[in-house]
């Protein structure tokens, strides 16, 4: 039920895919549940990890961000200063949050909303249930701090939601670029 000795190597080598930006409609569609043992899903998980790895500062990537409306994402918060519990690199299918607590605001960005950041209230501790791509083995992940935030952000993507749908108020969105 835990990640155990699962490694992304079991997925094979992924391709680096282009990341789409809002207002691309796929980002607002509810992703389909997937068969985690389907070879296409395994390849998608590998592609997501490969794309995340080449993207500077990227701590997670969900299928809708590469144009696929499906409930698959990857996360890796290794070495992040705001991380507490760290599970390394992993990919999950059909993930659901089954427990959430310790709500607190924090500022988030997103590769699919490159020009803005926003303050979003997220649970500082979550329990997530999902299936591992490849084996389809059920997994129950207990985590906190930044990894919990990343999981909630990616699970939102799989539900067709962006951080913009959850910003805490009109003064909680910030421009990354200066228009001069």
């Amino acid at each position, binding site marked *: 039920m835990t990640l155990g000795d699962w490694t992304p190597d079991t997925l094979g080598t992924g391709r680096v895919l282009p990341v789409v930006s809002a207002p691309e409609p796929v980002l607002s569609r509810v992703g389909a549940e997937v068969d985690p043992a389907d070879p296409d899903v395994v390849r998608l998980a590998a592609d997501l990890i490969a794309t995340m790895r080449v993207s500077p500062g990227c701590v997670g990537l969900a299928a809708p961000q590469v144009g696929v409306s499906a409930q698959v994402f990857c996360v890796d918060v290794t070495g992040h200063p705001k991380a507490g519990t760290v599970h390394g690199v992993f990919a999950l299918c059909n993930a659901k949050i089954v427990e959430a607590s310790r709500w607190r605001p924090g500022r988030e960005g997103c590769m699919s909303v*490159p020009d803005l950041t926003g303050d979003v209230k997220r649970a500082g501790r979550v329990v997530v249930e999902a299936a591992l791509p490849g084996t389809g083995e059920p997994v129950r992940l207990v985590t906190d701090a930044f990894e919990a935030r990343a999981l909630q952000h990616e699970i939102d993507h799989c539900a067709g939601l962006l951080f913009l749908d959850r910003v805490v108020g009109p003064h909680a*969105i910030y421009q990354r670029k200066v228009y001069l």
Partner: protein
Amino acid sequence: MGETAGVNELAITVIGHDRPGIVADVAEVLGGLGANLTDSTMTRLRGHFAWTLVCNGPEADAVSQALEPLTADGRLLATVRAVTPEEDEADAGEPHLVSVHGADRLGIVAAVTREVAAAGGNITDLTTRLAGLLYVLVAEVSLPAGAAAGLSERLAAAAKELDVEITLRRAESDLL
């Protein structure tokens, strides 16, 4: 001025080319005239400096005159006018947040805020941003009790019409 300072409420806007020191310059002018700066909000809108403020104190003409050196080169625009003080009433409505995002097109703000108004909602805070092709609106709205469900339905219809995403949520405020 003098003994009458404090009786005038002034609404002032300062907008234009941004540079370091505008807030300090304007605040200094106001302070020099004995104006008491009360509520204000400042941001940059597409790189333009924009400050809206309310202050108490001197006559509007005196403030306009004192701000003239700051606006003389035409890159900054300041307006000053006397306003009638508003009653500070507690808002009886229920605070909600409206988030809108989607491809930029004409009429998004008009269509969304018209629905809010039709539901008896009052917009108490609003930000819009255009980032590339993406248009974003976040508003805090005060809704009459029981109006949220109906508004939510009408906003869903508007979202479909405009081809944007709209969410309506109750704004959280934890009293500690």
